C-alpha cells in the first residue's frame, strides 16, 4: 500500500515528525515501511520562470533567444531555447545554472551558436515527470516565478511503501494508517467531512436493492446522483491517485478510487440508465451464465460466483470487478453508487477462479470494515457531486440483512505478563487499547471486556489484545530470559548418527556433497525405472506435481541418481573431469496400499554417488588412472563400514540402469537389499550425454541403519600364535572370488583368508585365472603345530578341487 504523507496529513497531524521517523515508528508497530520516495527529488535547481521576451536566434533557425524572470527580484536571464509551444508571458520550468536534471544532465552556462545561455527551459520529460517531450511544460499562469518546480507541480510529497500483512486490511487506506499514526503519536484522527447536500426525489424512488444471498452479502447500500457530467478529474486528485499507483480515468470513477484509497472501502459506480428496471439484485450465478467484465473478457461463471444484477442480467462480479454493460461512460448522467460488504472467502474464491485480483477483491477477501459501508458511500457521493456536478438524491437505498455484531474480547490483567514475561499495567493497557479504538465494556478486578472496532477483523481472542499492547509498547521492553524447563537429554536418533557417519565416510573417500531439487523431469527418471529391454522395473511410477515450475521439474524423484548424473555432466562441461559427488536426500513413492499413518506418501532416505575421471589427480607421486568398479565399490565399502554393516553380500548384476556385467547389488547378511553399485549402463550414459565408464551407487539409508550397528563389540586378542600359508588357485574366469574364499573359510582353523593377487596369462590357458590367497590359521586354545596347519591346508586344497562352485587346481 502506497501512502502519501501529504494526503495522510489531512487526517492526522504530522508536524514535528520527519518522514524517516514516521517510517521507523510504523515499522516498529508492525506496519513495515519497505520504501520511502521523495517526489520531486532531483528537481532542486529547477524553478518556475516567466518568459519576458522571445526572439529568433541570429545563427540558428530552430532556436530562440528568450529572457526570463526567475523571481526574487533577480535581473532577467537570457536563455536559448529550442521549443516553440510557448508564448511570451507563459510560466515554464527553468533549470538554473549548476542544477542537475533527473536524467543526469548538468546545466552549465554555455554559448549556443554564439549566443550566451544561462540555464535551460524544460519539457516534462526533461523533468522526469511525464513522457511528454513535445515542448516546454507550460505551468498555470498563477504560479509565481521563483517557485520551486516540485512545489508548483505538487511534487513536494513523500510516498511510503507500506507492507500491510494479510491480517491488517484496515491499514489498506490513508485513514487506516492515520489511525495507527494517531495512536502511536497520541494525536487525534481527523475524519474527512462529507459535505453532502441532498435534493430532489428520494433515492428509494429511483432505484431498488434486493439481496438474495444474505450469507454472502451482509449489506448493500446505494445512492443515486443525477445530473453528473463526466469529464477529467482536477489535477490535484489525479496526481494523488497516480502517486498511489491508480490511473486517473474520469471524475466519477476517480471519486470511487479516491474514496477507496482514503477510507479503504471499495465502491462501484453504475450508469443508472443502463441498470435495467433500476433494480439491483445480489445473487449467485446461474448455471451456464456469462458476464463481460470491465476488462472486456467474457467470463464463464461458476454457480458460486456472486453477481450484482439488474432486473434482467448480471452487471458486475460482486466485490471483484464491474461489468462492461453498466460501465460509466462519457455520456453517463445518472449514477448509482454501490457500497456493500461481501463475505471474504467467497470473494477470494471468485477472484482466484477468474484470475482477477483487483483493489476491491484484495480488500474484501481480507475483510472490509462493516462500519464503513455508509460513511464511504456518503463520502464518495459528496465527491462525485463536487467533481462532476450533479445532485445527490436524498437517502440511502439500504439492504442490510446481517447487521454487524461487535465482538467483545476479555483481557485478564495478568495475561500480558503470563504471555510476554513482562507485565503491562492496567492503566497502560487501557490507554493503548482505547487509543486503538477498543472500547472498554465491563471491567472487574481480574480484567475487562473490550469491544473490537469494526475495522479490526484480525482481533478475536485475548492473545490478539496482548499483541496490540506489545506492538504498541515495542518488543524492546521485554527482557531476555531462557526457558526454565526441566533439563532433558535429547536422544540423538540412531538414524541421525548413521547419516553423520555416512557423510564422513564419503567425504573421506573424496566425495563432495551435492544438493539437488527433489523434483526432476519424468524422462530423466525413466531410464532408472525401466530395464533396458523396456520392461518396467517393479514399483510404482513417480508422483507428479499438479502445478510444476516446468516439466523439467515435474515429478518427485524416485532416485537421486538422475540429478547426480546431471551434476556430473554439468561439471564435465565446465572442464571439471574428476567428479565425485554424493547426495543424501529423500525419494518419494506412493504408499503401499492399506498402509497406516497419515503421511500421504512413502518417503525414503537414500545415499547416492557418482564418480568419473581419475582415481586421484595425477601428481608427481601417484595418480592418473581412471576409476573403475572397484573404486566405486571402495566407496560403498566405506559406507557399509561407517554404518557398521558387516557380512554384506555382493552379487552380480546390479540394478537395470547399470552395466549388467560391471555392477552389483548389495544385501545385508539377512538378505535384505541395501543398494546397488556399478558402471552406468552405456545406453543410460548416452541418454545423459555422458561418456562411458561413469560409476554410480545408491543405497537406502534406512536399510543401512537397520542392518548396521554403530557400537563395536570387543573380542579378546588371541593368546596363541598363528600359522601363515599362501595358496594360488587356478579357476575358470567366471568363478567369483567370494566362492573361493567361502570354501576356504569353511575350514575350522582358518582365522582369515585374504585374496592378494589375480593373475591371467601365460602359462595359464585362456579363460582361466589364478587367485592367490593368504590364509591365517589359528587355534583358539593352543599353539597350532605345523603338521596340524598342513593337514588343514590339505583339506582346503581338496575342498577347492571338489567344490562344484570352485573346481580349482593348485597352480603348478
Amino acid at each position, binding site marked *: 500500500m502506497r501512502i502519501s504523507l501529504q494526503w495522510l496529513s489531512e487526517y492526522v497531524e504530522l508536524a514535528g515528525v520527519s518522514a524517516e521517523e514516521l517510517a521507523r515508528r510504523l515499522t516498529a508497530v508492525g506496519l*513495515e515501511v519497505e520504501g520511502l520516495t521523495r517526489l520531486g527529488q532531483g528537481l532542486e535547481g529547477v524553478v518556475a520562470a516567466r518568459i519576458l521576451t522571445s526572439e529568433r536566434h541570429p545563427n540558428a533557425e530552430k532556436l530562440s533567444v528568450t529572457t526570463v524572470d526567475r523571481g526574487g527580484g533577480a535581473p532577467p536571464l537570457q536563455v536559448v531555447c529550442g521549443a516553440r509551444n510557448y508564448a511570451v508571458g507563459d510560466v515554464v520550468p527553468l533549470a538554473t545554472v549548476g542544477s542537475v536534471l533527473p536524467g543526469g544532465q548538468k546545466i552549465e552556462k554555455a554559448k549556443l551558436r554564439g549566443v550566451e545561455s544561462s540555464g535551460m527551459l524544460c519539457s516534462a520529460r526533461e523533468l522526469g515527470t511525464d513522457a511528454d517531450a513535445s515542448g516546454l511544460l507550460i505551468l498555470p499562469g498563477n504560479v509565481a516565478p521563483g517557485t520551486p518546480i516540485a512545489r508548483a507541480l505538487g511534487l513536494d510529497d513523500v510516498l511510503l511503501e507500506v507492507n500491510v*500483512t494479510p491480517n491488517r486490511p484496515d491499514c489498506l487506506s490513508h485513514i487506516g494508517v492515520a489511525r495507527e499514526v494517531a495512536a502511536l503519536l497520541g494525536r487525534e484522527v481527523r475524519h474527512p467531512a462529507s459535505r453532502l447536500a441532498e435534493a430532489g426525489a428520494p433515492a428509494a424512488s429511483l432505484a431498488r436493492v434486493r439481496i438474495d444471498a444474505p450469507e454472502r452479502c451482509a449489506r448493500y447500500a446505494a445512492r443515486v446522483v443525477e445530473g453528473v457530467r463526466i469529464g477529467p478529474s482536477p489535477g490535484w486528485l489525479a496526481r494523488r491517485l497516480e502517486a498511489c499507483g491508480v490511473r486517473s480515468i474520469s471524475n466519477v470513477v476517480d471519486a470511487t478510487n479516491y474514496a477507496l484509497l482514503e477510507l479503504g472501502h471499495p465502491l462501484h459506480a453504475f450508469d443508472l440508465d443502463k441498470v435495467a428496471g433500476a433494480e439491483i439484485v445480489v445473487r449467485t450465478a446461474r448455471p451456464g451464465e456469462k458476464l463481460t467484465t470491465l476488462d472486456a473478457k467474457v467470463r464463464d461463471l461458476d454457480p458460486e460466483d456472486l453477481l450484482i444484477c439488474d432486473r434482467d442480467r448480471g452487471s458486475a462480479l460482486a466485490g471483484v470487478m464491474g461489468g462492461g454493460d453498466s460501465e460509466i461512460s462519457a455520456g453517463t448522467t445518472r449514477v448509482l453508487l454501490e457500497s456493500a460488504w461481501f463475505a*471474504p*472467502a467467497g470473494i477470494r474464491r471468485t477472484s482466484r477462479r477468474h484470475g482477477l485480483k483487483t483493489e476491491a477483491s484484495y480488500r474484501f*477477501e481480507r475483510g472490509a470494515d462493516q462500519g464503513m459501508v455508509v460513511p464511504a458511500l456518503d463520502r464518495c457521493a459528496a465527491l462525485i457531486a463536487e467533481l462532476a456536478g450533479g445532485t445527490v438524491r436524498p437517502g440511502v437505498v439500504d439492504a442490510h440483512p446481517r447487521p454487524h455484531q461487535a465482538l467483545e474480547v476479555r483481557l485478564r490483567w495478568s495475561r500480558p505478563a503470563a504471555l510476554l514475561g513482562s507485565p503491562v499495567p492496567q492503566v497502560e493497557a487501557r490507554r493503548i487499547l482505547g487509543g486503538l479504538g477498543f472500547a472498554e465494556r465491563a471491567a472487574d478486578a481480574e480484567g475487562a471486556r473490550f469491544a473490537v472496532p469494526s475495522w479490526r477483523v484480525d482481533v478475536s481472542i485475548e492473545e490478539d489484545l496482548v499483541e496490540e499492547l506489545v506492538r504498541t509498547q515495542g518488543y524492546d521492553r521485554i527482557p531476555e530470559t531462557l526457558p526454565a524447563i526441566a533439563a532433558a537429554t535429547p536422544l*540423538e536418533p540412531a538414524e541421525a548418527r548413521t547419516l553423520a557417519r555416512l557423510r564422513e565416510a564419503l567425504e573421506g573417500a573424496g566425495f563432495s556433497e551435492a544438493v539437488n531439487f527433489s523434483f526432476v523431469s519424468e524422462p530423466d527418471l525413466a531410464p532408472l525405472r525401466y530395464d533396458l529391454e523396456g520392461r518396467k522395473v517393479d514399483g510404482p*511410477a513417480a508422483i507428479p506435481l*499438479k502445478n510444476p515450475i516446468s516439466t523439467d521439474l515435474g515429478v518427485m524423484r524416485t532416485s537421486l541418481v538422475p540429478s547426480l548424473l546431471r551434476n556430473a555432466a554439468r561439471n564435465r562441461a565446465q572442464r571439471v573431469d574428476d567428479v565425485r559427488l554424493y547426495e543424501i536426500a529423500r525419494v518419494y513413492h506412493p504408499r503401499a496400499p492399506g498402509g497406516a499413518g497419515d503421511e500421504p506418501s512413502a518417503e525414503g532416505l537414500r545415499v547416492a554417488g557418482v564418480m568419473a575421471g581419475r582415481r586421484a589427480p595425477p601428481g608427481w607421486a601417484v595418480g592418473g588412472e581412471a576409476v573403475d568398479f572397484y573404486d566405486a565399490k571402495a566407496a560403498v565399502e566405506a559406507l557399509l563400514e561407517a554404518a557398521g554393516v558387516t557380512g554384506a553380500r555382493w552379487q552380480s548384476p546390479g540394478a537395470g540402469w547399470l552395466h549388467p556385467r560391471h555392477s552389483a547389488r548389495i544385501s545385508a547378511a539377512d538378505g535384505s537389499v541395501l543398494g546397488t553399485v556399478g558402471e552406468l549402463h552405456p545406453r543410460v550414459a548416452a541418454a545423459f550425454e555422458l561418456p562411458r565408464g561413469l560409476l554410480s551407487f545408491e543405497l537406502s539409508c534406512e536399510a543401512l541403519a537397520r542392518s548396521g550397528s554403530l557400537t563395536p563389540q570387543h573380542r579378546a586378542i588371541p593368546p596363541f600364535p598363528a600359522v601363515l600359508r599362501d595358496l594360488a588357485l587356478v579357476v575358470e574366469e567366471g568363478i567369483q572370488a567370494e566362492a573361493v574364499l567361502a570354501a576356504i573359510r569353511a575350514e575350522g582353523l582358518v582365522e582369515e583368508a585374504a585374496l592378494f593377487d589375480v593373475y591371467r596369462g601365460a602359462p595359464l590357458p585362456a579363460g582361466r585365472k589364478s587367485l592367490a590367497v593368504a590364509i591365517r590359521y589359528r587355534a583358539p586354545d593352543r599353539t597350532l603345530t605345523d603338521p596340524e596347519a598342513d593337514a588343514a591346508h590339505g583339506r582346503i586344497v581338496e575342498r577347492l578341487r571338489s567344490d562344484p562352485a570352485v573346481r580349482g587346481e593348485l597352480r603348478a
Partner: protein
Amino acid sequence: MASLLAQLESLSQAAARDIAAASDEKALEELRVRFLGKKGELSAVLRGMGALAAEERPKVGEVANRVRDQVESLLDGARERLAGARLEAELAGPPIDVTLAGRRPLPRGHRHPLTRAAEEIAAIFARLGYEVASGPEIELDWYNFEALNIPADHPARDMQDTFYVEEAALGGAHRSGSVLLRTHTSPVQIRAMKRLGKPPVRIICPGRVYRSDYDQTHSPMFHQVEGLCVDEHITFADLKGTLAAFARAYFGPGTRTRFRPSYFPFVEPGAEVDVSCSICGGSGRKDGKRCGTCKETGWLEVLGSGMVHPRVLENGGIDPSRYTGFAFGMGVERMAMLKYGIDDLRLFFENDLRFLRQF
C-alpha cells in the same frame, strides 16, 4: 717360524695402513676379503703352519688369532667411521623438496554449505536441549495450513505459493488439492506435539521446503529450520532470550537482536527478528562504503517467530489454557549466505565442484 711371524707382522701393518686409507664400504669389504677371506693373506700364512714343529704351532696360531682380531676390529672401526661420516654428510647435505605436494592419494570431499549451516544451527539448539524432529515433505493440507491457523480461502495462503501433488498418483483417498509439498517446516510442530503427547516439547526441525517461485532470489526448493518450545510458563521473554543466545552463537558474541511485530498466522503475538549485520557489525558502513549486505540499515532480517497461537496448540493436542510456547523459523540459505559470504542463491543448487570445494 720367524718368517711366518714376520709375515703376520707385515700383514698386520699393511692391514692397519690400508684400512685407515679406505674411503668407502666397498673398499673395506675388499680389504676384508684380501686379509681375512678364505683365500686371503691370513689363510695363506696359516697354510704355512703345516711345516712347523708341533710346539711352534700354538705360538704362531696365537699370534695369527691376535692379528685376525686386530684386523677385524680395525675393519669394524673403519666401518663405523665411514657410516658416521656418511651420516654427517647426509645431515649436512641438500634438503629434499619439501614444497612438493604430500603423497595423499585423494583429497577429502566437501560438505555442502547448506548442510554445514543446518548442522551448525542444529548443534546450537542441541546444546539448549532441543531434539531433532522430522516430518514428511509431501504433506497434507491440514498439517501445512489448516492446523496452523491458515484455513482454506484465507489470504495468508497468498504468502506461500504452493505446489500441489497429483493425489491420484498417491493411491490413497485424498480430496483434490489436499496434498501438497510443504511450504514450510511448521507442520512438523503439529506432528511433534501430537507424537510427544504432552509438554515439555523442545524440538528443532531442519528440512527441505517448497514454494512455487523461481527467479534470481527465489528457489522452488529451499531449506528451513523450525523450532518449537512448549511448556507451562513459557513467555515471549524466553523466546527473546533463546533467539538472542542463538544469534550470538551463530553470528558471533557481539551480535545484537531486534524484534519487530509481524504476522504469521500460527503465532500471536508474532515477530520478525533482525540481527545486527554480520558484515559491517551493524554500522551500515564497510570500508568507508555503503554495506551492501544490510543495505546500510545495520540490520539483517533472519527469523520469523512468535508465541504459538492457542488454536495451533489445540490442534497439536495441547491445552492452551495451561501451556504456552514459542516457535521460530529461519531460512538455511540465508543463514549460509551470510555466514560464508555467498551472494547468489542459485550457486547452492548447481553443484559446481568449483563452488563445493570451497567449503
